[in-house]
């Protein structure tokens, strides 16, 4: 079963970081990704730039609306995503609680519904 671990944390936690903190954070994420990889459960991992570089697009009101900034202004921002393939929610929880971002933000676990592979959508196993 695929699960997306969605990382949310406050923006200042990124912009106010010292070089050492940044280094320590990177090292923690490196160790975490490596642990997932070694366990053979990592599908993909992406840590995003800050919301300062976000652009949002919508046509929901009839016309094209391009907005400078994130979809929603919240204290904790969507900041990264790890997709893992593990047997069940308990295993996903075990990994989520070991995610460095859980130390300074929130990790949301979302099971995958369908995914697009080799030209077709396939349902989660």
């Amino acid at each position: 079963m695929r699960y997306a671990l969605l990382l949310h944390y406050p923006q200042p936690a990124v912009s106010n970081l010292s070089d050492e903190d940044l280094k320590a954070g990177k090292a923690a994420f490196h160790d975490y990704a490596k642990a997932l990889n070694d366990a053979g459960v990592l599908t993909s991992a992406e840590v995003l730039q800050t919301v300062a570089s976000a652009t949002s697009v919508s046509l929901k009101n009839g016309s094209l609306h391009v907005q400078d900034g994130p979809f929603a202004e919240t204290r904790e921002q969507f900041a990264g995503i790890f997709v893992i393939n593990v047997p069940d929610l308990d295993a996903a929880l075990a990994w989520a609680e070991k995610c460095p971002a859980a130390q300074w933000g929130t990790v949301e676990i979302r099971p995958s519904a369908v995914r697009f592979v080799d030209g077709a959508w396939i349902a989660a196993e």
Partner: protein
Amino acid sequence: MDSGRVTTTAEVRAEELARTSYGRLLAILAASSRDIETAEDALADAFARALSTWPKSGVPNNPAAWLLTVARNRQRDVVRSAADRLTVSIDDVATGRMSQALDGLDPDAIPDRRLALLFVCAHPAIDPAVRTPLMLQTVLGFDAEQIARAFAIPTATLAQRLVRAKRRIRDARIPFLVPDRRQLPSRLSPVLEAIYGAYAIDFALVAGVATRDTLAGEAHWLAVTLADLLPDEPEVLGLAALLSFSLARRPARGSVDEFVPLDEQETSLWDTTLISTGERYLHRARTYTEIGRFQIEAAIQSVHCARAASGYTDWAALGTLYAALVSISPTLGARVAQAAAIGRTDGASAGLGALDAIFGESVQRFQPAWAVRAQLLHQAGSSNDALAAYDRAISLTTENAERAYLEQRRAQLVPHDGRE
């Protein structure tokens, strides 16, 4: 004398003092003002002055008294209360013109306030999550960056939590007092938990622990300090014993790449001095006939350590001790360990029965429960169930070394698979 050598001596002395008397001096400074932040600044300032002055004027006869005097002056300067000012001015001290008043000021003669400081750090009004870092910083003199690294959280986040806790102590007027006999049992327990917490963070908050510093040695230091300060509290002695035994076995515990379970560890790697320290504490604790969680856990470790001399593990004794532990502290970990001990003495099915008797949803997500279940099913010859249990244990394991160990056990199972 060449000056390079003097500098080295002064620096070494200052570092030694920082290690041995930092907490003692800070506790004295903070206890009178209840303001830990100002006391820390004053003491840091005194250490900085020592480093610039001692190489020129020589290390004073009573360096701790020197530091205390300079720090107190600094504290008073901050408070800006002229009436409070000591007769020894900073200039007098800094230029090395030590007045005789200094020799009369002996920090060793001032009652040790570290105990009060430990109780402040673990006061019920202080967030449990910040108690351990607060102790490490105030009693052992660690800076926020070192502690943050051990806890795998950003320095800024931890520094903010520490500052908030210290302001809370000051603003809410948390008293620097050792609780009286009546309150002591309830107030002592969070102090013990916080010290144990410094040891237990070793067991991984974040996956892939390779780069993290360990605080096991510091936790042991805190526990031993507390045992010196409260030598008649059996649980304090129990904690000092527990951490002595645990630290003794560290060299044999494997590495990030290799997991070695306790009963397979090479006993020649265990530290015999620490084991006898542990035995001494445990022996003293036993004279009080007042049993508690840390004493039982220490006794369990003592049984494991006895294998170094006897060559075998006394599982029956462990079974009895785990039963006692479960009766006073029925944690998931204790109950699973008890089931494992029952499996050793009364056979696999009795062990599995004990595991099945553990209620609650959380046991379904508890990795050690599945690792023990897999092992017991393996032992009982239920290969298919054992395979499934190993799979589940492996899926819940985030540490490489431990997963490799479980995978290896699982692989041993496969040849018998056709039997069922």
